[in-house]
């Protein structure tokens, strides 16, 4: 009986203190870590069409089409299929593809979630945070050469 009363006292304490742990989402936006991985942003100016991102992508989310002189024509990314692992950003030597903090995207059909390079370019920053600065420290570990053979390009 005492245990039951203790349980009830505990919940009553919570009911009376008026604290909330949920947020009223559209009005109160959550704080998001600069490392958060959301929708991609693509920069055609930076991209050198090396296709490393396409190659490293674990589930073929990125599709790159180049002409016969290896000039880039299309860069398609299916944000509905993407698993947001950030490997494309990690391998990119020129920061042409970045995962923004933007987690708000919708589409009526799956097709609408297949973004082409224009759409990827226009993905807005979340709260104007450019995540690149926050992510810089780890880049060394990746861009630094390993001992193994380099099997791309």
């Amino acid at each position: 009986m005492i245990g039951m009363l203790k349980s009830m006292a505990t919940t009553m304490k919570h009911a009376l203190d008026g604290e909330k742990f949920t947020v009223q989402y559209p009005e109160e936006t959550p704080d998001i870590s600069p490392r958060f991985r959301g929708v991609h942003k693509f920069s055609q100016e930076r991209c050198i069409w090396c296709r490393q991102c396409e190659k490293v992508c674990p589930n073929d989310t990125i599709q790159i089409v180049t002409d016969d002189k290896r000039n880039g024509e299309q860069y398609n990314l299916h944000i509905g299929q993407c698993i947001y692992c950030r490997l494309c950003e990690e391998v990119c030597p020129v920061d042409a593809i970045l995962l923004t903090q933007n987690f708000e995207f919708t589409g009526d059909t799956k097709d609408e979630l297949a973004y082409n390079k224009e759409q990827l370019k226009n993905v807005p920053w979340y709260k104007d945070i450019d995540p690149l600065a926050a992510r810089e420290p780890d880049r060394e570990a990746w861009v630094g050469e390993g001992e193994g053979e380099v099997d791309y390009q």
Partner: protein
Amino acid sequence: MSLHEPKPLDVGETPDGTVDHDELEALLGETVIGREEHVNAPAFVVRPDEVQNALFALRDEAGFDYLSCVTAQQYEDRYESIYHLKKYDDPTQEVGIVVPTPIDEPISQTGEPVYRTADWHEREAYDLIGINYDGHPDLRRILLPETWQGHPLANDYNPEKPQVVPFRKHANPLQPDTRGEGAKSDTMFLNFGPHHPATHGVLHVKAVLDGEQIAHVEPDIGYLHRCEEQMCQQGTYRHQIMPYPDRWDYVSAGILNEWAYARAAEDLADIEVPEYAQVIRTMSAELCRIASHMLALGTFALDVFGDFTAVFQYAFRDREVVQDILEELTGQRLMFNYLRLGGVAWDIPEPRAEFFEQVRDFLDGLPEKTKEYHNLITSNEIFQVRCVNTGELPPKVAKQYGATGPVARGSGIDLDLRRDDPYGYYEELDWDVITEDGCDNYSRVLVRMQEVEESAKIIEQCVELLEDWPEDEREIQSNVPRTLKPDADTEVYRGVEAAKGELGIYIRSDGTDKPARFKIRSPCFCNLHTLREMTEGEYIPDLIASLGSLDIVLGEVDR
């Protein structure tokens, strides 16, 4: 005379706690036709019709009471089943039993009479590879539908072949009403799931009820089978596999799962991990364990309390704090993809002091919250009458079923790979393994709640270490080649202590940059197998409570 009489050595055990494999080979005698070296332990090749003899000898005389996993695979010229054996007392003592069977007649003797857990493992091997186990009590498909054509992991499998299921055969798979002795039986057949509020996902439990009591239950799994093993076989070691372990046990235990893969692959390719990275790994893994146990506690309370009530929400609130920390560290709340072979992806976020403060705040608040949980849950008399002495799993039975993790520790089995088969930085830290002797639902809850406290201890020590780490020695990754191609035909089986128990990974390399066979030993899969032992003869609410106390994640059961 000391109180602790030293245990007499098993056959093949040396006084310093290693395995003398020559002695074991002598014990197995005629049954052995060869020997293989795996990275983790040597393995004996045993004739397919002598499997039980070999396993009985190893279990009864050499003390290998723990069948960790059964891996099946197909080579060009043969099928192979590998029984990975360990000891509950000392899981570093390992041995493998390799059973080759010819391609044209893949029949191998079953190991089920020796280890009950082999039942499901062999069904899975039959289902996915196509090996027949002679003498198996119930050799049916386990993950795929019963009408499936072909065995998907076999070499000759044709994925193009249409899977035709005649409507007549599966007009209504849930139809049959009575099970048991004839039409006179007054039992009732009831399907729990696949869409049921308390099955924690898409689990289907076929239950035969005698009034309110359970006469027989059989979990029917496979609704969430996503070919995770095959997906890993198609990814490169270096990059493409690591995102997927997060998705096995997807309820915030991601880094623990990643570590399982990292440990196996690092052993396979002989990669060193810098000490600093090990500390970060240890800390983040324990954060994941707290998050996972909080969820287990919340959903168990949900099952017993019966509504989305306070305990569930409080547990989620606290889990949210952990997830915020993990988001700061890894950039994601559930699908972390944080570990890399040879280290971790990111150092502690700058400013470091702020991050450590965030972690400390959480740890400081934890004792008060634990007290609150004890007030709310464990000291509640109704909760006690519901959970004490229900869902009993005696240690002997638990060992037979290969139970691990909090389920085993709630049955008084003192097994924790973090201590018994050390990896990461656990050996250097001061913490305890929690066991409870109650063997019931209540013990399992207590074990989880106390493990949260132990994890907090570990995290606190890691934070202290990380704070004082000299700045120029903060190496987060060792130098790992961009393309990993381990030597052909290297095999490794390695487990880590994930939130639910031993998560083991078997990898066989074939000289390319992708694994030839990738097998996941899921703790939930084995723990779920014990459900029948726990619930038969008890009431429907006990079935639900026992299921909740097993803390299964269907994503990991079905893989």
